């Protein structure tokens, strides 16, 4: 990645390079309880009443509901050891077609992505998953203990977002160090970038083989707690 960004900076890439997916595994990141609750249906405004938008645990107000806090502890205990943290990414030079739309190694024609990738010379394409274990747990609890099921959903979402955040931070730091800029990551399903790009994107990253991500007939990913995204670099 470092090498790629460096070459982007110096303009020594032609765009004909073979695109190679790189596979990584991460250690377990810390759990952010207020984010779990946010994904489980608590409005951010309630959770961050004191913290003013910071992503931090210390000001989470919710544990004043003792029963809920207890249940959240239980859920965190249940889900312990159920996660894997896998990510596959590929770096690619960004081309432009005649109308200025970005040309990527997967086919798309999106105004919103075009805007997001304005001035970008390259992109990092990624897929990440925290595995099928959490889906099994959700499956188990959503019908027999729906509150637990909901909190597990929240936890799965928090886990995979935290994983992608960790990778994104690496990209940001690397870019910063070289005077480049990483744009906010953009995922299929945002704006007018349809989820129908998923098959090409996942194939490019060898996501089935490396990460175990497959798509169903309506382009939804299994494991459900998986994310794909594009990070533009200018």
């Amino acid at each position: 990645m470092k090498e790629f960004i460096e070459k982007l900076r110096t303009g020594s890439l032609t765009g004909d390079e073979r695109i190679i997916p790189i596979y990584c595994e991460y250690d377990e990141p810390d759990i952010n309880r207020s984010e779990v609750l946010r994904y489980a249906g608590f409005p951010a405004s309630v959770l961050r009443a004191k913290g003013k938008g910071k992503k931090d645990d210390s000001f989470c107000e919710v544990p004043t509901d003792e029963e809920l806090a207890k249940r959240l502890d239980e859920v965190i205990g249940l889900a312990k050891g159920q996660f894997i943290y896998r990510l596959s990414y590929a770096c690619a030079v960004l081309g432009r077609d005649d109308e200025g739309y970005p040309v990527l190694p997967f086919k798309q024609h999106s105004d919103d992505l075009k805007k997001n990738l304005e001035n970008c010379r390259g992109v990092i394409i990624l897929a990440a998953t925290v595995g099928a274990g959490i889906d099994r747990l959700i499956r188990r609890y959503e019908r027999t203990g729906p509150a637990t099921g909901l909190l597990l959903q929240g936890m799965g979402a928090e886990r995979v977002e935290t994983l992608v955040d960790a990778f994104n931070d690496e990209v940001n730091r690397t870019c910063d160090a070289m005077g480049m800029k990483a744009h906010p990551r953009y995922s299929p399903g945002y704006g007018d970038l349809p989820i129908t790009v998923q098959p090409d994107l996942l194939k490019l990253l060898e996501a089935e083989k490396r990460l175990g991500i497959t798509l169903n007939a309506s382009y939804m990913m299994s494991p459900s707690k998986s994310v794909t995204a594009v990070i533009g670099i200018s």
Partner: protein
Amino acid sequence: MNILDYMRDNFIILDGGMGTLLQDAGLKPGELPERWNVTHPEEIIRIQKSYFDAGSNVVLANTFGANCLKFDDEELTQLINAAFDNARRAKAESTGKQEKFVALDIGPLGRLLKPYGDYEFEDAVSAYAKTVRIGAAAGADLVFIETMNDSYDTKAALLAVKENCDLPVFVSNAYGSDGKLMTGASPAAMVAMLEGMHADAIGANCSLGPDQLIGVMEEYLEYASVPVLIKPNAGLPRDEGGKTVYDVYPPEFSEAIKKLMEKGVRIAGGCCGTTPDYIKAVAEKAATLKPVPVTDKNRSLISSYTHVVEFGPSPILIGERINPTGKKRFQQALRESDIDYILGEGLKQADAGVQVLDVNVGLPEIDEPAMIERVAKELQAVTDLPLQLDTSDPVAMERGLRCYNGKAMVNSVNGKEEVMEAVFPLVAKYGGFVVALTLDEGGIPESAKERVRIAEKIIKKASEYGISKKNLIFDPLAMTISADTKAALATIEAVHEIRHGLGVNTSLGVSNVSFGLPSRNIITSTFFALTLEQGLSAAIMNPYSYEMMNVYHAFKALHDLDANCTEYIEYAQNLPAQVPAGSQSAGAASGTQGAGSTQGPGGKPAVSPLQNAIIRGLKEQAGNITRELLKENAPLDIVQQEVIPALDIVGKDFEEKKVYLPQLLMAAEASKEAFEEIKKEMAKSADGGGPKRCSFVIATVHGDIHDIGKNIVKLILENYGFDVHDLGKDVPEQTVVDKVVELHAPIVGLSALMTTTVPAMEETIRLLREQAPWAKVTVGGAVMTQEYADRIGADKYCRDAMETVRYAEEVEKSL
């Protein structure tokens, strides 16, 4: 020469990676490699010949992704035929002197099966079957199923091979660095399932390098009684100046393989990143070794989709509670297809500590084959405990065995010729561990000796079907001592004889022994202890009985089956302070302390203890208090005066944003617990359930597989007493309409999460208007808005569960 004959005394050398070599030859990202069989046959032949030249005994035809999901029938046939033409040319042109075989290569379909994905198991079997038939006709010497990362998908592929050809079949799975398949299976679990279905060799490929697979291979070698294979990557890939580079080179790679061969691996090759150089090195190393003989490990295993349970070393508890016999509430649940209740029974037993769940859903008015399939699938979606399929109907047994993800326990066969001839072929085909009752045409013999004789007869008959005695477990039948006081002695003796004389596992449904006596638990648990001492391997029992669990834990501690008495100490510490003598139920023992608080959240006016428990989401308390209340109050009064008002308080707080979704659901869970007690009480009375509110059909629309929101709405509606009929997710339009018509339901709720499935919702509404014009339609889901709802012609858009309840009440009033 047949590969199985060759394999008996020799190592088998497989080929190496294909993908990377094809990319080097110019295959573009996203291009399907199977098409190269026709467009670039010379490249395929060149690569495959180089593997034969390097010493491969088996080269995989270039058919990894050749399936009917990627190609139409005509192209599929053409590509597979071309693949075999190429591989055979490579074989003919190779200078290698070794025995050479060409395998039909089968990789995953790329669609995850239900319940985690959306693809049907039987559709997967059919898809694989097509590839198998074409490959067999094209002249494959064997079938090689590989890179499978899901056990259910693996079963589908293997079943398709077994049903469509007689070729030898090797099965290889792709493990993660945690040593498990993506969907959770351990190597031992795969061994149990695949050997049960008669795979000829099994093992692992891809994902990792040979050193990272050592643990996985050791587990295979410990359990497998068939040859074990490995086909690892050349380590992990990394990007080096725009080229994929793997970090393990031929010398280290072949050294790692050699070590594994010394441990007993018999079949080896390479996967991603390996080339003919790797294979040559492996073949050279293999030539210096003598193959370790493959032996029968004689382990009695069953499996779920995650793990194995082994019979023999330590006693196994099989939960008996999923069974309608003598249980009114369970019978009602079966008749109403109340699957959640049945699942609840399974999960409660799992929490109580059983290792296997017995599943008996036989009731005269029930379609048992359909029900056992449904319950087995649903149970496997929520618990990873292996199941014991308990039925006397061979049709139901086959349905259960076929759809089961793993190797099931089968209950039961007996010494009757007719029964053995019905059951053993099923076990031979699908795999299984069979409970055999020691009775035959002459009934149940009184003496232990006669029961042992029947056991011997059953062992002999089973062996004719290729079922060895490690896959049998005998139930010498516990008879009630109130009818004959010698009965228990005969059973105890039979357990001893079968276990120690015949060397086969034993199981008992222990509770029968005390039938007709007072305080049955005392007799049953003591009998359990006596039979355990004689070597009983498993008991079908009630895990809610403290006496039984006491015996189980104490026995293990006393028999050196519980290191440092850890399990026992943990069990003892979690026992409630005082267990009343002769208590019937472990679930009933905890008290109701703490439920007396009358302070509602936010200084609300005082509420009753039950209401307090519901509002705060205290499940256990809600159940206990309800049980107490039921002693003096009519069930429906409790609903009207306690439960509904409590739900209203929480519902209102939710609408006013004083509490949020998790808290609403916790309250719903607690009230469900209260309802469960009420239902139990009402099931005792003649009318079975009491009056219900109007029916409400609910479904997630066709194409959409998200049902969390729908499930929440369903739960809250049920709490309010509506007769909810949940059709599940991904429900075809006409199915919704048919149900509404059948019930003449006044209200329908449809959910859609994705914009792509809104048209399916619109179509459902259109059909409803045509065929069920009386029905009111409410819609919801993540993408729904009032505007959308208006546009597709819904009667109402409901933002959340509470709004749906209010609307349903409104509709009901207008009826």
